[in-house]
């Protein structure tokens, strides 16, 4: 029996997050912290600053005002979302550092994740959810367990994804049968290792089984629907051929009107294309 938790913890590519993220986490969770404390941590890393500013000014966030400094970024997006932008860069680096494989192209999964991130935020906007924090990063990180499995079992998992796609099988069933673990559980192990916020842990674990989650249902529902739309629009490749089935409970959490989904489709492509281009450059 393979101990996946140990395998993940001991994998050099995936085991650590940059110090800046850990420091930010500690500072943000401290009630005595000020904006200046957060700004000082980010400003120490000038490479990150330029990237963060660029992403925050991109269509992903659709800010009306141009943001030029970290303190402005914190002012407009809040502590958590600025930390999420930094986490996004780490997630994208994990994709980048995953070795090229014969049977599966990691770039396709990277594109699928960005599509899910963009759509998830657009869904939240369409549902008039006031706090849009976490929607982009939640979409981006939902399938991180697949990246984990592609790092710890590269050939075996890549072959399995191709087998699932070629035969139009259910991914979770094959994962359980062949590996004894699903990508959701692999992702959960990583989220513990990285000490991710509870909301993201829940998205990673329950994005395809919303009915089992007791917390953050609206966030998870948005990611699940975004995942479905990314499959329908064929933006990237998640490693499965068929479109995931929506949980019946999904529609209870998203106050959409008839026709909203059709209208959403035309908004997705321009933001997705621009996000791909910006994040591609920034994760180089």
């Amino acid at each position, binding site marked *: 029996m393979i101990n996946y938790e140990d395998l993940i913890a001991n994998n050099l590519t995936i085991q650590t997050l940059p110090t800046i993220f850990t420091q930010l986490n500690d500072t943000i969770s401290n009630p005595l912290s000020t904006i200046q404390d957060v700004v000082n941590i980010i400003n120490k890393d000038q490479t990150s600053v330029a990237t963060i500013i660029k992403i925050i000014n991109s269509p992903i966030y659709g800010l009306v005002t141009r943001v030029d400094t970290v303190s402005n970024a914190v002012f407009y997006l809040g502590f958590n979302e600025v930390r999420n932008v930094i986490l996004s860069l780490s997630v994208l680096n994990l994709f980048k550092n995953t070795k090229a494989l014969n049977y599966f192209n990691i770039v396709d999964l990277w594109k699928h994740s960005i599509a899910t991130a963009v759509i998830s935020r657009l869904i939240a906007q369409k549902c008039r959810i006031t706090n849009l924090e976490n929607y982009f990063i939640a979409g981006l990180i939902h399938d991180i367990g697949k990246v984990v499995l592609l790092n710890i079992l590269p050939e075996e998992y890549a072959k399995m994804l191709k087998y699932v796609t070629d035969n139009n099988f259910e991914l979770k069933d094959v994962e359980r049968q062949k590996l004894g673990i699903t990508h959701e559980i692999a992702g959960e192990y990583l989220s513990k290792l990285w000490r991710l916020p509870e909301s993201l842990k829940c998205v990673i674990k329950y994005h395809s089984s919303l009915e089992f989650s007791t917390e953050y249902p609206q966030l998870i529902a948005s990611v699940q629907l975004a995942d479905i739309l990314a499959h329908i629009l064929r933006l990237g490749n998640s490693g499965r051929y068929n479109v995931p089935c929506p949980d019946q409970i999904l*529609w209870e959490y998203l106050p959409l009107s008839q026709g909203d989904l059709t209208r959403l489709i035309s908004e997705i492509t321009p933001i997705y294309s621009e996000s791909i281009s910006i994040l591609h450059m920034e994760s180089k």
Partner: protein
Amino acid sequence: MASIISSECIKDGMILHDPVINKNGQVLLGAGKVLSVSFQRILKLWGIATIVIESDDQSNESSKEKITYSVEAIELAKTIVEQKIKWKPYNTFEQELIDIAISIYVKEVA
């Protein structure tokens, strides 16, 4: 020829090419039915996001949103979508997702 249009784009005088069928297979409106703007509201209430209309009719030309495809292309797109979406729609939103998928595939197979 036939066109898939959004139910919100129905104009007076358009003619249904395909019957409008609900998720239980019941025919709500038969092929050949002459539509009017008031059907926009009725179809919305029924949760029907798109319909297939006759496209060579003079009365359709005012609709800028219409896209014209052959019946064969629409049928082929539906077949592809059935392979990709293995679940059955349980509500109007899920039907809308399927309609979106059909409208995407029909552009490719046309």
